[in-house]
């Protein structure tokens, strides 16, 4: 087989996979939207305000409800004790 034929076959396969990712995202979207609507219902039923991504401290569990200076309690740009504290920005109000 000529090298160009092999390369063509390789690119045909990976390009199809690349295109498939978009088709897959499109096909899974209706189910994802329905599932998101259910999650939104849980949010509205219980009056939730935040994602349960960081449960280690109160200001990382509910960044939107935290005290004005927590997330960065010592001063607004201090390094945090908790690893995820270093990934959460100062509250929007402080940066305005």
């Amino acid at each position: 087989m000529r090298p160009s034929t092999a390369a063509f076959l390789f690119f045909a396969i990976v390009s199809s996979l690349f295109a498939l990712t978009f088709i897959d995202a499109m096909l899974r979207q209706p189910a994802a939207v329905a599932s998101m609507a259910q999650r939104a219902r849980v949010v509205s039923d219980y009056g939730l305000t935040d994602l349960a991504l960081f449960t280690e401290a109160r200001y990382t569990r509910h960044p939107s409800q935290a005290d004005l200076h927590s997330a960065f309690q010592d001063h607004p740009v201090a390094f945090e004790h908790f690893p995820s504290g270093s990934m959460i920005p100062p509250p929007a109000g402080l940066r305005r």
Partner: protein
Amino acid sequence: MIDFFRRQRYLVDFTLSSLLRRKGKHLGMLLVYSLVVFVLASVMLFSHALQREAGVILQSSPEIIVQRVVAGRHGLIPGNYLEPVGRLRGVSATQARLWGYFYDAALKANYTVMVPPDRQLGHDEVVIGNGIARIRGVDIGDYMTLRAHDGGGISFRVTEIVWPESELVSADLFLISEHAFRSVFGIPEGQFTDLVLSVRNPREVGKIAEKISIKLPDARPILRDEVLRTYGSVFSWRQGIVFVLLSGAVLAFVIFAWDKAAGLSAEEKREIGILKAVGWETGDVLRMKFWEGAIISLAAFLLGYVAAYAHVFYGSAGLFEPVLKGWAVLYPDFRPSPFVDPLQVISLFVFTVLPYTIATIIPIWRAAITDPDAVMR
């Protein structure tokens, strides 16, 4: 036209044979290049999917939350604050909420304990999030005990587990009755964590928040827009932080790629000289090198992106879990919804494929326009 394609095909054949002569070096390069694209694409896809998800589901969060600030910190709010707030024009409903945190020393995890609005639970009943159920290994009908503020234990029977697919927002929820909440935390009657307001006209939200601040100077209104903005910035920030952390590795790769693509070895220069001596035109040499850059960078982009898509949307972004989890014991088991922003994919393509392809052409052009005899010497 056919001639053009035939010519390009011969050039590709020649380029590939030349690449295969130094197989190890080029395969290594392709692997590192694909890994760089994989990490960048994973961060991009994951952040975008979560940002989109937070933006949609948190649209259902309360419109205005009123907290009381005591000595610069969030304090309990008296129930009689409901009355002046409820009388404000435009406020359609008010509700006082009770919620807080409970640290489970056995598990070393924080629960979010809440009294669910509009739902009556028995004094010994609890509805738990699936994260707690998974980590504690409890099911419906089992008992869980919380250590109350006075040191006594209060047991609750699990009557329901919140829909597991909502773990992203409910993994650590521990929902109990108002009576049980006050018994556990020792919060007196008439005191609440915060107030929640519904507003008839969304355009009046800002005005109402202003009026609350005037009427209740020790209150801090938090608007839904601020909640959404917080999440918008959290994900942009995190994506930025990861990119900054990665920038060292990316720069090292850029230097390596630039050196590989731009710095011509004596062997390569000799090859160009020989090609020109046997009759290749400058244009052919440039085309050959263009194909070399394009084949490597395009293959790396496609492989890296496809792997990143599978990692984020089929593997639940498992490689990021330790970073996101931090010190938390309770981490939601969730699979991001597959939302892809085509503009981001195009940007990734432009920033990863084009620079390498261009970097390969410029030095070759310099070598290709010089005299073959001088290049070979």
